[in-house]
């Protein structure tokens, strides 16, 4: 954590689904301006943890504090209004609306129509979809849908961005472009990204947090975490000497 006080903090955060504990008493902190990656095998609880942070799921127990405010149990729109934006695992877009309209809907914080128009154009240029502005979002190929959703996330200039697998289904070139985009977006912002792609993680992350069975297994720099014996065991099983992720 780089900041003096954490921007986001969870204390004993727990989420159960019946008898299954998807997130188990997680104490997590991320500092202002930090770019953190969350990794872990499938089913480790990363996405559920994200959905608790964004208000899509109500935690079963524990607290969430954002910039000193308790946001535990707040709805998604209330948390979004506090400056938290999420990019979901499967791009959630307004498929029947144009790319331009999608972004414009995300600029409501900007004030006047003219300001919203300017912000929309800026965002479209940033995500490289200015030439696709009039195209329905539902017609975009997968990689561009991911970028458009990133555009929706950044359009409101949030203080905390949650990116759930931003490179899922992308080609190597698109992954590199997305990493470059996320690095640029990270300037002056706090980002937490769930990701499996080690190339992407190496390119963007300051610190990596490893989830396993709903708990935090370890935390540290990318290299330190990838060399960690426990992490390699979690990914590849005990006694196997192979590279994590």
């Amino acid at each position, binding site marked *: 954590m780089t900041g003096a006080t954490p921007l986001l903090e969870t204390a004993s955060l727990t989420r159960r689904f019946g008898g299954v504990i998807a997130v188990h008493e997680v104490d997590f902190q991320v500092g202002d301006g930090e770019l953190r990656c969350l990794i872990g095998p499938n089913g480790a609880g990363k996405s559920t943890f994200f959905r608790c942070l964004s208000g899509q799921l109500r935690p079963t127990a524990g607290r969430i504090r954002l910039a000193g405010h308790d946001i535990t149990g707040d709805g998604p*729109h209330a948390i979004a209004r506090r400056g938290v934006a999420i990019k979901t695992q499967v791009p959630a*877009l*307004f*498929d029947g609306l144009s790319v331009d309209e999608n972004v414009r809907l995300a600029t*409501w914080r900007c004030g006047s129509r003219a300001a919203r128009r300017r912000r929309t154009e800026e965002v479209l240029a940033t995500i490289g979809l200015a030439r696709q502005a009039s195209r329905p979002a539902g017609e975009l190929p997968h990689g561009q849908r991911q970028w458009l959703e990133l555009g*929706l996330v950044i359009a409101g200039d949030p203080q905390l961005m949650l990116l759930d697998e931003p490179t899922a289904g992308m080609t190597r070139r698109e992954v590199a472009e997305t990493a470059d985009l996320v690095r640029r977006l990270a300037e002056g912002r706090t980002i937490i990204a769930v990701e499996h792609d080690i190339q992407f993680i190496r390119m963007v992350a300051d610190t990596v947090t490893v989830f396993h069975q709903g708990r935090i297994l370890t935390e540290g720099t990318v290299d330190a975490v990838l060399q960690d014996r426990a992490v390699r065991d979690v990914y590849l099983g005990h006694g196997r000497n192979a590279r994590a992720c």
Partner: protein
Amino acid sequence: MNWLRDRTGLLGAGVAGAVLIAVVPAATEVYVQFELTLFLIFAILALSLAWVWGFGGILSFGQSAFFGLGAYTFAVAVINLGESTLPILLGVLVPALLAGLLGYFLFWRRISDVYLAVITLAVSLIFYYLIGASAGSQYRIGAALLGGYNGIPSVPPINVPGAPEQPLVYGDLYILTAIVLAIVYGGLRWLLATDFGRVVVAIRENEERAQLLGYDVRMRKLAVFVIGGGIAGLAGVLFAAWGAYVSPNVFSMTFTAQIIVWVLVGGLGTLSGAVIGCVLVQAVMTWLGEAKLADTNLVLGAGFVLLVLFARRGLVPGLRDLLARIRPPGRDPR
């Protein structure tokens, strides 16, 4: 091409409105205007569902409840007051309030789409049986006897505001209804062009994403539902004044389903489609009823099956798709 398409639609609606208001009264007999008035009243009701369902994404079987409540409120109030201005306002406000109350429980409780449809249907049927059980002299509100399944006869007409001695006769009511239809249609189009309207459509497209952008979905859905309830109530007011009669049949399952058929035939997600679908279906039903060529419901059912097979999205979107296909290549297909 979007701006051209939008303006073509608006121009078409404007021409249709001008013909309805200026030409029809001069060119037709009173009985034709009487029949057309009913079609236009139903078109207003169809617009209420087109707005709530087609743009708000809320499948409401309750539009008939709001329609009937508007009709009954107007009938009871105008019988008691003897003047129509306040009863008209009440006929809009009371259904809108019911929609607000119902919508609060539906949207704040996060009732899913299917259950919402079932609950709104149940509300209509509750009104049907409740009002139906109100036969007898003990069931009266002031001077108005509710009359059970026989309904309330001799509902006084709409009059010039403040002048009950000047009622609107058939031709006048036709013009008033056509103007109301034009205002409702234009008002909804305007609403859809505002930021509020854009967010409403966005919620229909992806409710979760709208929430994640910071929009209070519940509040906007409630607003959509209340506006739709008020419009349906207004149609109910005109209906009670048109026939000088209202009965529990306005809450019936058949009538509820009929509204949905109008909107589906015209095309979900369009306003003009709701008006066209309603007028077309009602005209065919009337013609079949008069000509006695075949069973009305059988023909309508067959027509609906054909529509689902060949123009699944309804007449207006189907026509748009057809025009897009026959346009010369190289032009924007949308």
